[in-house]
């Protein structure tokens, strides 16, 4: 699955600092604050050579404005474009939200570790996302869909604050029916029109059956969610090395230089963003 590392240092020197010029081909509003950007690398040759694995991130740059790390939320087999789900929270994301199709941005990457989908072959996969956490999980979900026969049951638990903030809800039916995934959603606050469940994501554990010996878990969400979810999964008997989390830090380089994501000897951009829970437990301040 993974490509052998490139030991030609000259190539790394060239690629790591230089951005691929890319065109925004679509900016699709998802909710009031989030937009899904389809981004295509301009050069056909570079586009062909650009490969990534589920869970990796890229640095997206707006010249003159800034550069930010964003996880890739499209299928690894999609050679046409990269999908990035971006919430409008700061200077660069705010500017990105004002861009229309046709704008040229720069991307560097891909960086970081990936969800070890190859290890999960033959197991059940439990994917848990909170809020915007569904964005990095889309790549593994697509991967699982494309290799559906490799995995046993696939369950997605998704928690959001309000029904209006549910991301990619339009795809859930397709995933359920075509790919035979079990998707459960829960929201914290909702009015009477919401037909589904109300509460926090750990409430959904009652609705599903988890076989601790046969399950891999992937968790992504706000820091507070990791604690409760992973603690709960541990009590169920799921080994910590089979729980994977994707951490968030504000990297400035993506290459283990700026230290923004450093804790001790661990860099979230090099050793992460995907960590198993055992590593996270040994990492101070991780969540």
């Amino acid at each position: 699955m993974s490509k052998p590392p490139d030991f030609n240092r000259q190539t790394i020197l060239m690629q790591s600092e230089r951005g691929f010029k890319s065109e925004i081909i679509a900016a699709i509003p998802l909710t009031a604050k989030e937009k899904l950007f389809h981004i295509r690398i301009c050069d056909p040759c570079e586009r062909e050579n650009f490969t990534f694995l589920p869970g990796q991130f890229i640095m997206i740059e707006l010249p003159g404005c800034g550069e930010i790390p964003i996880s890739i939320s499209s299928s690894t087999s999609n050679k046409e474009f990269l999908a990035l789900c971006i919430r409008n929270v700061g200077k660069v994301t705010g500017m990105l939200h004002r861009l229309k199709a046709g704008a040229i941005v720069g991307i560097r990457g891909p960086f970081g570790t990936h969800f070890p989908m190859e290890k999960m072959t033959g197991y059940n996969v439990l994917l848990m996302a909170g809020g915007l956490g569904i964005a990095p999980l889309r790549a593994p979900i697509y991967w699982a869909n494309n290799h559906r026969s490799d995995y046993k049951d696939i369950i997605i638990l998704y928690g959001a604050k309000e029904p209006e903030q549910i991301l990619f809800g339009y795809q859930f039916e397709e995933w359920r029916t075509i790919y035979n995934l079990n998707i459960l959603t829960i929201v914290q606050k909702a009015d009477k029109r919401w037909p589904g469940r109300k509460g926090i994501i750990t409430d959904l554990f009652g609705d599903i059956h988890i076989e601790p010996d046969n399950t891999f878990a992937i968790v992504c969400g706000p820091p507070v969610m990791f604690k409760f979810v992973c603690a709960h999964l541990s009590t169920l008997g799921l080994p910590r090395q089979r729980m994977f989390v994707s951490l968030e830090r504000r990297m400035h380089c993506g290459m283990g230089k700026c230290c923004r994501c450093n804790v001790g000897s661990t860099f979230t951009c090099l050793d992460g963003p995907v960590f198993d829970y055992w590593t996270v437990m040994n990492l101070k301040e991780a969540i």
Partner: protein
Amino acid sequence: MLFKTITKENFRNMIEGIMENNEVIGPKSRDRDTKGAKIYRFLKLNSFDELEMDYTRSYSSPKNYFLPFKEDLATYDLRDTGWEQEIRYTIHPRIIVGMRACDINALLKLDQVMLKSQYPNPYYSARRRNTVIIGLDHEPLEDCFCRSMNTDTAFHGFDLFMTDIGEKYFVAINSDTGYMILNRFDSCEVGEEDQLLYKEVRGRIESKFKTQVDITIVPELMDLEFESDVWKRWGDKCLSCGSCAMVCPTCYCYGIEEDIDLNFDKATKRRFLYSCNLLDFATVAGGHNFRPEAHIRLKYRYYHQFRGFVEAFNQSLCVGCNRCGKACLAGISPKAVIDDLIGTEKR
């Protein structure tokens, strides 16, 4: 390694000869502090007389010639149809004279991160490869603890390294460039007498270290004492100004900012050195700060220097120059913090 000797007069000729066509950087006295002592900095030299060979400690480290406070990473030419990126990292060759062993060792530690890692840094690489380093031995100051950090001697990472043995300098040669420079000016082979003198000087230097810090168990203590009130005690003093990181010879944290021209036709991507003690260091999108308090940030600074780097490269990031201790406005010195952590601090 090859060794030679050069008389002090010939050394003067050598530096003046190099200076004719090249940029020479060395310790220069800039000002005096409140007690009347000279303040030194590594700056461009215009004549040999400006070079202070017996300087005590430069206020900021010569690291800034390899990792400048501000550096343009790329420029952008903005057009209606898009933009073009231009990356430039070529520099003119130059010479740094008078670097201490601790500063040379600091560069070797930076090399581990910047050159020998997964993503080598081209900007640092260009500066490192085009800089000739002439090191200089010195007698330890009151508060130097480089011997405890094993950085009081340098065996590589320089071109020439000189030790004052009275009339002459005893020179260790570690590169072809260094050998060529020395050969162009009169230098002598090492005699038996020179060798004895050199050993004597080295012995004298080694016997003069007063400050000692025992860091053998510190990597473990960092985890054991992670919740200790030592951090709170020192951290509450910390003003979160980041001075320590600015003067430190090994701190390399940085930030990226992008500027746009007032005409909107040019943009610059700029790297500036940062400090993990500054308030917004670990802030992520949406405003969550992983290290909201000063004592937490101070702890993680030590955690990286004395634990993380040891884990990754089997050596601590600190070289024991105590520049941070001198620069700190709140009087936090690494020796005091570590002693307190180990429990040997006299209270």
